């Protein structure tokens, strides 16, 4: 239990966070209401501190500095796509601002697109049912104050409504020059029979992605966080309907402080949801993957597959929970988090949790940590392969289980390339 003083401090810190950001203007009544509720959620929870159980392994101080929005960029920086092998529609966010002038045309068959600002000023939009709603639902068991802050204050983002199979993925590229807050909030609705892939690269300071996959819909999310220069906190909230499919994969390479939360709930039977990630950390980088999976329906299959490779004094964290509601029979929940420590100074912490209120379920979790297999290294070296190359081969094979969670083989190759590149860049 936190003392009253700490609770007061947390609330004041939350007020400071809100106070640094301007109040959104000109929005529809329902949007204003959603914002107000989010503010209340944030103030009630308070800003996160290390003493919170959920932040035990990650010091949140750098994420709770009250910051005014970063100033608009004077010149748009160059943007290169790490996903160049895949035809995708690029949407650029520079300093937290959607830059349609730098983006490609978003309209395509099966997809309705609006900016978040447009969506929140209208009365009829899928955003109305979703904005802040999935984030709110995702706070049922654990407070997620940084997500509430985002709902309260973020004005930039996209509302994507997939009504059929969408041929080309939407690729969000985030860039930031200069210090300050950058908040983005995206709302996605995938209808029955529709499918959509969203790619992300670069670093969004504080981002929320709310995804509602209607029965029979399919959504993929593939993200590359390459050497983020600033602390970043991301939340993906997913609600998955009957027979629907959801997949998210994130590769995090270095970065001083990255906290990625994925909160997924099955609300219809026979659905699947796969959450995967790979972390490559060196020097003093810190990457935290926190996952919460709720099985609220029957015969759903969830998978969490996380692979972490660390050297130097890097830290990796995995917190993963499977929560099975009463009646969610025939649940199949799988969770694995493994790490390889290339050097002694690196540290990996894993906290797997199961909370099960149904009696006919299959849930498993496993976690391992250790060095690369010396016997395997010797075998490879005895064939002429240098130690560095041998390590790269073994690390590549180690992260493969997570990479294989990506469906598109071209995107798998992008991630394999990132891993090889990171290994080649070792000091």
């Amino acid at each position, binding site marked *: 239990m936190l003392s009253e003083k700490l609770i007061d401090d947390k609330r004041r810190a939350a007020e400071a966070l809100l106070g640094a950001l301007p109040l959104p203007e000109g929005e529809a009544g329902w949007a204003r209401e959603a914002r107000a509720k989010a503010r209340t959620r944030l103030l009630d929870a308070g800003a996160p501190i290390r003493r919170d159980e959920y932040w035990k392994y990650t010091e949140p101080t750098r994420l709770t500095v009250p910051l005014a929005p970063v100033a608009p960029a004077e010149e748009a920086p160059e943007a290169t796509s790490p996903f160049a092998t895949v035809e995708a529609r690029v949407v650029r966010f520079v300093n937290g601002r959607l830059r349609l002038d730098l983006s490609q045309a978003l309209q395509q068959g099966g997809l309705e697109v609006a900016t978040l600002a447009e969506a929140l000023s209208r009365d009829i939009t899928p955003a109305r049912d979703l904005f802040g709603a999935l984030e709110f639902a995702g706070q049922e068991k654990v407070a997620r104050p940084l997500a509430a802050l985002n709902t309260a204050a973020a004005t930039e983002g996209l509302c994507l409504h997939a009504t059929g199979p969408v041929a080309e993925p939407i690729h969000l590229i985030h860039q930031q020059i200069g210090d300050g807050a950058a908040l983005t909030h995206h709302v996605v609705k995938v209808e029955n029979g529709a499918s959509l892939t969203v790619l992300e690269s670069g670093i969004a300071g504080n981002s929320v992605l709310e995804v509602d996959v209607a029965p029979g819909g399919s959504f993929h999310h593939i993200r590359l966080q390459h050497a983020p220069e600033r602390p970043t906190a991301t939340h993906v909230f997913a609600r998955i309907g009957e027979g629907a499919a959801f997949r998210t994969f994130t590769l995090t390479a270095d970065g001083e402080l990255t906290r990625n939360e994925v909160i997924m709930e099955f609300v219809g039977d026979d659905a699947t949801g796969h959450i995967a990630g790979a972390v490559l950390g060196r020097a003093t980088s810190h990457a935290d993957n926190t996952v919460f999976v709720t099985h609220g329906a029957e015969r759903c299959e969830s998978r969490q597959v996380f692979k972490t490779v660390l050297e130097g004094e890097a830290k990796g964290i995995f917190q993963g929970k499977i929560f099975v509601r009463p009646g969610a029979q025939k649940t199949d929940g799988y969770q694995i988090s493994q790490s390889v420590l290339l050097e002694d100074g690196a540290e990996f912490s894993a906290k797997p949790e199961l909370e099960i209120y149904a009696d006919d379920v299959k849930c498993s979790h496993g976690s391992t940590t250790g060095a690369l297999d*010396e*016997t*395997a290294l*010797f*075998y*490879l*070296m*005895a*064939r*002429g*392969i*240098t*130690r560095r*190359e*041998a390590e790269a*081969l*073994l690390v*590549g*094979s*180690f992260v*493969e289980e997570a990479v294989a969670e990506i469906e598109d083989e071209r995107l798998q190759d992008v991630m394999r390339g990132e891993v090889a590149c990171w290994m080649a860049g070792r000091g």
Partner: protein
Amino acid sequence: MLQIENLHVKLEDEDKQILKGLSLTVETGKVHAIMGPNGSGKSTLSYVLAGRDGYEVTDGSASLDGDDLLDMEPNERAAAGLFLAFQYPVEIPGVNNMTFLRTAMNAQRKARGEEEISAPDFLKLVRATAKTLNIDNEMLKRAVNVGFSGGEKKRNEILQMAVLAPKMCILDETDSGLDVDAMKLVAEGVNALRSEGRSFLVITHYQRLLDHITPDVVHIMADGRIVETGGPELALRVETQGYAGLTPAA
């Protein structure tokens, strides 16, 4: 030519001497066999020559064509032409057999200042070699040694040996765990590689492998050193009389 002189080796972590002044010369183009009872230090010799961690050389030397082996990393020894066929080939999940072979081949070429082999040339070489060893394409595509039978693992070792074309091949108990047919196949693979420029050191507990790979010279090893050297007839003597009478312990 492999030259080992007065080699003394102990375990790194324990005060246990395993090789106690072993001397041996394998001339270029020759096949030497080392036989010996369990615990005589045969496998330690192969590991020390290949450069495995965990051993400490306290005295003596080992060189290949004049180059000091003990001073090199395992990969440098391989590039210098040394090849160890493992008694227990290691399973490496997630690393494809072909990728592994190609990486190894190019790493050795790079170390020797040679150009990388082209993909078509490599494929041609591997496929042709694999065929003679009864290794099908499916096995080439699988992860290194994962799910391989004992015989498949040993054939895979010989495949690597054939493709990498070393000067000095050490076969550590290659016959262990093999039935007669598998052993014949492996022996044929080895015999096909015998040439003027290539030497072999065949380490074995039993004489039976030497029925198929006829050695030029046979050494008996006991308690960390060579205790007797002779022709192929020495192996036959072990077969009928056992190691009794050949080893100091007996």
